[in-house]
């Protein structure tokens, strides 16, 4: 983006009623054009919010972080440069580059890194923090030729690397990938010495633009997609199974089909992090089974559910997979080597991302894998991610045993040996935040939260946070529901309640209400209900227990609930984190 365009975007009047997004930009240099580019990119990427960016005190990055209070901003952005670790690593200070001084610089940098680490660990507990590690070159301060790394340079890179690595484990910190930065901003053209000397802003315009764009994308934190549907022939493997036979298909260097192996390896890694993998292939089912028994296949049969292998249309297969997963098409990627099949599926499911597998172009396959990583990448992998596929299979088994779509009978529910675990007050639970922000159908009001808002809300001791985990004899569904409310006398005001659609038809929602009445000892629940385009299942449930009128405020007394609730058969366990 050019600066003139960024200025225009920033100056254009925003539409009214936008939610404010407060950001503190902490950097040791004057933020000048970086602030402009960041704001402009945020306005483009997130048109529904109004970004307000404040900069800390010039020249004191660490002090800015240490003085930061979570009430000041929703996000903290730290643009670290070498001169923040020691000012002598910048051009604006003349502290000397003699060997003894270089040793002292390393000692000071180590101590600055420790201060930064402890300050960021504290800040990131309440405020999502984006960290950009040094992007500018080190000055020509070291005794070796430029092509040779000096021990002091390596020491400084180790210090920065260790700082980065130790912070990367903190759930509230996102670290900007230096490789992504290098792809859009060449290291040789990042530093503008004239601007640094003149105004204290060291970035060239192109580098400021690139940094602003990437930082804005880090804040945007797009929701990762959930499932991938792939073809088999000339996609998972090279060759046509029906023509070449099980031994004729390949994915190795010898047969010039290595990229199919790389694709398998990639898909397998997605499956291991909770991405659902389905197969849609026009093929012979017994041959596919045989192919998946090959020991050298990098994708396990266990990683795939369901297999749609037959001669019917791909549209039919994709539709069935979506039903099995109970996920909307906009969360899915479809991959096939046939442009015609891709076009057909794209027409039937316009919101789905459909891509052709470029079987004879290795570079294009690698580019596809990079795109997919970006679409499916998530900030942290949770236990629930690992459980997702098992949970979907469990839901499938439940559906076939319970006679779905009919409501399961009391007899079936009693025999399901269901157990529900209520956890009260586990405020560091990242899964709760994830569920609240992605659940649509069983959702009290469709309310979404920023990470900072959510952290602030649940740190309020007067809020009751309840998470619900479910399992039965068919298997575990994992953590499937979250309730957040405030207790006022003998009432609970419920402001957020979501439940995964995988958990429908098990009367878990009734058990949640019973829990509130019995365990919290309240007589009335007030629902901060709002209809949304997609929360029909929640509305149906609420009508079934509270009556047909859903006009605000919707409330439910303990007596009405007892009259309307069906019999419940779950075994209950409760964990309270005081």
């Amino acid at each position, binding site marked *: 983006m050019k*600066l*003139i365009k960024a*200025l225009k975007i920033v100056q254009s009047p925003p539409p009214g009623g936008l939610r404010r997004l407060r950001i503190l930009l902490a950097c040791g240099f004057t933020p000048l054009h970086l602030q402009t580019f960041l704001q402009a990119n945020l306005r483009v990427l997130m048109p529904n919010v109004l970004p307000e960016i404040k900069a800390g005190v010039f020249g004191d990055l660490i002090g800015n972080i240490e003085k930061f209070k979570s009430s000041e901003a929703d996000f903290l952005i730290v643009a670290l440069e070498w001169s923040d670790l020691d000012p002598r690593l910048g051009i604006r200070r003349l502290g000397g580059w003699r060997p003894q001084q270089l040793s002292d610089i390393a000692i000071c940098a180590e101590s600055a890194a420790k201060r930064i680490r402890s300050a960021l660990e504290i800040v990131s507990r309440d405020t999502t923090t984006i960290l950009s590690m040094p992007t500018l070159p080190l000055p020509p301060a070291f005794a070796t030729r430029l092509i040779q790394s000096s021990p002091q340079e390596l020491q400084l890179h180790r210090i920065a690397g260790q700082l980065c690595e130790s912070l990367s484990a903190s759930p509230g910190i996102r670290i900007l990938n230096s490789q992504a930065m290098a792809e859009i901003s060449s290291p040789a053209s990042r530093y503008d010495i004239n601007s640094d000397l*003149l*105004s204290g802003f060291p970035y060239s315009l192109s580098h400021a633009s690139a940094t602003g764009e990437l930082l804005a994308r880090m804040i945007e934190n797009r929701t990762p997609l959930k499932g991938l549907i792939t073809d088999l022939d000339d996609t998972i493997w090279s060759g046509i199974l029906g023509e070449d036979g099980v031994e004729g298909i390949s994915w190795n260097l010898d047969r010039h089909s290595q990229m199919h192996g790389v694709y398998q390896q990639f898909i397998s890694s997605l499956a291991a992090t909770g991405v659902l993998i389905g197969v849609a292939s026009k093929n012979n089912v017994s041959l596919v089974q045989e192919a998946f028994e090959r020991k050298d296949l990098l994708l396990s049969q266990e990683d795939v559910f369901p297999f749609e292998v037959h001669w019917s249309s791909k549209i039919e297969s994709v539709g069935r997979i979506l039903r099995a997963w109970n996920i909307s098409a906009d969360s899915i990627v479809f991959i096939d080597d046939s442009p015609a099949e891709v076009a057909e599926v794209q027409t039937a499911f316009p919101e789905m991302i459909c891509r052709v597998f470029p079987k004879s172009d290795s570079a294009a396959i690698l580019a596809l894998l990079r795109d997919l990583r970006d679409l499916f990448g998530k900030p942290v992998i949770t236990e629930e991610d690992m459980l997702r596929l098992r949970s979907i299979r469990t839901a499938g088994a439940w559906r076939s045993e319970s006679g779905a779509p009919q409501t399961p009978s009391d007899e079936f529910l009693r025999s399901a040996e269901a157990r529900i675990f209520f956890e009260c007050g586990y405020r560091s639970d990242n899964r709760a935040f994830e569920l609240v922000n992605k659940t649509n159908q069983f959702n009290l009001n469709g309310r979404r939260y920023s990470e900072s808002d959510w952290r602030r809300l649940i740190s309020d001791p007067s809020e009751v946070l309840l998470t619900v985990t479910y399992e039965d004899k068919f298997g575990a569904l994992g953590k499937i529901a979250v309730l957040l409310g405030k207790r006022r006398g003998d009432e609970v005001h419920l402001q957020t309640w979501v439940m995964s659609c995988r958990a429908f038809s098990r009367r878990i929602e009734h058990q949640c209400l019973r829990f509130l009445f019995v365990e919290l000892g309240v007589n009335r629940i007030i629902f901060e209900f709002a209809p949304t385009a997609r929360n029909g299942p929640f509305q149906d449930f609420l009508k079934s227990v509270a009556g047909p009128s859903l006009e605000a405020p919707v409330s439910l007394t303990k007596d009405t609930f007892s009259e309307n609730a069906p019999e419940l058969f779950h075994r209950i366990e409760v964990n309270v984190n005081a």
Partner: protein
Amino acid sequence: MPDQNERLLRCFSSVFPTLTEEEIENATAESIGIWDSLSTVTLAAVVQEEFDLEIDPEVLPSLNSYQAFREYLITR
């Protein structure tokens, strides 16, 4: 030259969005309260990017009016 003037006006307008075209043409650092050192740096950056040139930092203090920028561009 008209094209150059138009582009320079656009640059000024991006830094001083509240000024009219006429006000910009008569603008000097002294006559406009909002023209501070930061505006000069931003103006220089926008002009450098727009006209694909590098302004010598030593010249920058003398670029203290619209006309000064205009004459500077003519001499380039």
